[in-house]
């Protein structure tokens, strides 16, 4: 979802609650807490996710001046992933196991010895590998509560909504058709009717009373 040019790809969310009056102080504190930090391989991390300046993905030193534009909060969600090349891993592992066997003048290593070598090879490769980096933009329109997140991946949207909740202490709801319909139906006092609605046959070859409903086992 490029902010200043090009096309927009996004899932629409909506903040369900009223933001507190002291939101600026709360947001700034939590933005720092949930800001992006590089992957720490020593801690066994292969992935890291956090907020960055949407205009500069290397800037995770965030404050409201950098993210609040009128009634818009604009942020980047940076996701770094370390992916070990499996062919390189297997080749390096074979090489290291060979070296060890020659050193010990043995024909076989124990399972524990192999695991030690495997961990060392994995850690060495992780330290030498650059992470894959992606940044997804988010715009929150404070006035209406709409939030546009620049990815349509289910997994990423789930992670996004979790991080959003932790950062801003409000819950957000995806604007799926049924949830929009539910909000409309609640206002019209048709909530019960909405729950009963079944798929309609748009084909003239399918009579109205033959719509099938899957039966749970």
């Amino acid at each position, binding site marked *: 979802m490029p*902010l*200043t040019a090009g*096309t*927009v*790809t*996004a*899932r*629409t969310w909506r903040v369900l609650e009223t933001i507190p009056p002291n939101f600026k102080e709360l947001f700034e504190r939590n933005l720092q807490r949930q800001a992006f930090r590089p992957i720490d391989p020593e801690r066994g991390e292969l992935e890291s996710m956090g907020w960055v300046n949407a*205009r500069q993905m290397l800037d995770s030193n965030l404050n409201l001046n950098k993210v609040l*534009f*009128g009634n*818009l909060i*604009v942020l980047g969600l940076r996701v770094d992933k370390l992916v070990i090349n499996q062919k390189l891993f297997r080749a390096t592992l074979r090489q290291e196991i060979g070296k060890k066997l020659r050193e010990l003048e043995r024909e076989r290593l124990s399972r524990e010895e192999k695991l030690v070598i495997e961990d060392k090879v994995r850690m060495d490769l992780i330290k030498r590998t650059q992470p894959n980096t992606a940044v997804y933009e988010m*715009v929150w*329109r404070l006035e*209406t509560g*709409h939030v*546009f997140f620049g990815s*349509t991946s289910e997994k990423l949207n789930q992670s996004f909504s979790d991080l959003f909740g932790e950062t801003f202490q409000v819950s957000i709801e*995806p*604007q*799926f*058709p*049924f*949830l*929009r*319909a*539910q909000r*409309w*139906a609640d206002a*019209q006092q*048709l909530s019960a*009717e*909405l*729950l009963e*609605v079944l*798929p*309609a*046959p*748009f*084909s*003239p*070859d*399918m009579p*109205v009373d033959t*719509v*099938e*409903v*899957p039966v749970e086992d």
Partner: protein
Amino acid sequence: MGVLELIQQKAFLGKEFLTWLWFRSETSGALDLRGGRTAEVEMMGPIVLDAQYGDARMTTLKGESPATSPEARAALLEGKKLKRAKLKFKRDDNEWVAVLDGENFNLSGLTMPEAGRMPFDDLIAVRMEWVMEFENILADLFEVFMTLRMDAGDWSGELVRIHDWVKSK
């Protein structure tokens, strides 16, 4: 039933909405929105149709006018509905084009009126206003659809018109 199950079970509403937009785009003029405004919808391509239950096959149609193709008619006659489609929305002199997913209303490749060259703060504000306008059009159209859909009398009349449209395609 939990919310997640309901979202899944009632996902057909989004596909019916897209298919209804398709029907209206080919049979009506402008659609009424809130506040006395109107919008026009035009089907573009590609379009993807799938069945509600039982048939796992999807029909994907590309090319210049997939929505008016014999394959589109055949898919509709089989009972398939629009799962995903590229649509053009017009309101006043402004146009938005997007691929809309019927199951979750995910937007892909939304184009909108040009904002021109301006400082970042202004540019982001203008572009987000256009995105919000699109969201408002979508929300209004969905509300028009739901008002019709949830009125048994109005909906049965609309369904007859939809059937006539499919037969005449």
